[in-house]
């Protein structure tokens, strides 16, 4: 691991230790925050008991589905918009202000459209995550060097070969940025939707635990959310690093 990596690890460990100490010495009241060791213990307990598997499963399906759909839709729409300058000029303001719209307020509407199931939450995730992928796709395609496309023609590649062998690898750095952001937005959108308005999933579990004064369970679930967010983000980051490290100019 790099020096930066070790420093990060050290900082996180020091932060957790400090929090633990503050909680144990009751500087932070147990009602406000339980010690991190307790969170881990409670989370392990929940996972062993298996009570929260349904919630985890539901959230995983929603986030995974939304992420997948956002990637597919984002790439297709991005490619179409990039290829059509006029369309691009027209939708640019929509794309640029999309993140300023709180998409979870559409939840009741989406329930009316899709019924009470996981679909409205997937829809919230898709609504939140797709624009990032669209923007990343447009940016990636913009940055394909024209000389490489000319080289493709000299090699007499077919359109499909050019797409796969030249365009995709050229756009990859930008696409990865889109992947990371899309995951973040899908995750945030789904959990927020569950938290505010739904009857299942991890987000709902946290809200429910809070309202029924099960503080330890609430913190255990928050820890789970934190671990997933940091874990997936870290995994995408590492994957990106492995693929792109050799071509850093």
């Amino acid at each position, binding site marked *: 691991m790099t020096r930066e990596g070790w420093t990060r690890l050290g*900082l996180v460990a020091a932060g957790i230790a400090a929090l633990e100490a503050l909680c144990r010495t009751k500087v932070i009241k147990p009602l406000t925050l339980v010690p991190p060791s307790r969170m881990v213990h409670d989370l392990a307990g929940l996972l062993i008991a298996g009570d929260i598997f349904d919630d985890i499963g539901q959230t995983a399906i929603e986030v995974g589905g939304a992420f997948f759909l956002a990637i597919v839709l984002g790439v297709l729409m991005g490619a179409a918009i990039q290829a059509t300058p006029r369309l691009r000029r027209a939708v640019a303001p929509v794309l640029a202000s999309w993140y300023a719209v709180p998409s979870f307020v559409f939840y009741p509407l989406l329930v009316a459209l899709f019924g009470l199931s996981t679909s409205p939450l997937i829809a919230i995730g898709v609504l939140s995550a797709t624009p990032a992928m669209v923007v990343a796709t447009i940016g990636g395609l913009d940055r394909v060097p024209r000389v490489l496309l000319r080289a493709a023609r000299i090699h007499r590649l077919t359109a499909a070969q050019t797409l796969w062998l030249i365009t995709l690898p050229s756009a990859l750095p930008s696409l990865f940025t889109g992947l990371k952001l899309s995951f973040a937005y899908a995750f945030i959108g789904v959990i927020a939707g569950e938290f505010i308005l739904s009857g299942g999933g991890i987000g709902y579990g946290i809200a429910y635990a809070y309202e029924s004064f099960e503080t330890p369970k609430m913190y255990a679930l928050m820890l789970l959310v934190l671990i997933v967010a940091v874990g997936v983000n870290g995994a995408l980051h590492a994957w990106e690093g492995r693929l792109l490290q050799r071509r850093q100019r």
Partner: protein
Amino acid sequence: MTRLFDSLAIVAGILLLWTGVFEYAGDSAITGPLQTFRFAANLLGRADFWQHAQATLSAFGYALAISAVAGIALGLILGLHRFSGDVAEPMLASLYTIPKVTLYPLMLLVFGLGVSAKVAFGVIHGMIPVILFTLSAVKNIPQVLLRTAKALHLTPMQTATHLLAPAVLPEIISGLRIGFALTFLGVLIGEMFASQRGLGFLIINGINSHDVKRTTAVILIVITASVAANGALLALDRRAHH
């Protein structure tokens, strides 16, 4: 001319989609465009609406000031000290991925019900992008600019105002634009849970009491305000980027 036409076509498309959704889902889920505009206009003429709007705006003002000042300061520090920046950047990106709404019980316990919780919500949403944009702006200052400053015998003050500020300003403005929108979002979310006042409260209250007419109108007003502010900042942003 075609530009105007295309913009109008987009607006028409949105209204058409809205109408379609309304026809399909019915008025238990959403009100139609015309009705919503009328009700929104009505709302805008009422004093109690403006009290809520006032509450949101003042919390937003505090939150934005904190997000901007602290965000730029932290971004500058992390950008100038390369190692700290490299350590912090992925951590900040991970924090950005956390659904911050789940932290609301904690916020409530720490700040209690009221303005400070809303402000805190605004700040945790809006500050990270400001930090990240500022950080990368400072990190990407071309070394040749600094060498030029030395060659021209500029004082540190002159270097800061004449070379560094113009070099980083456009990116910082982009960061502030996103920070602006997310801070607003954060305040609204804060109001939905940690407050009895504000536009966020109006929305959640409307949803819970199935007051579709009011909810749709408030959402329309909120989105319009947010998109309009974003459009103005976008224009500024474009000018800063030449």
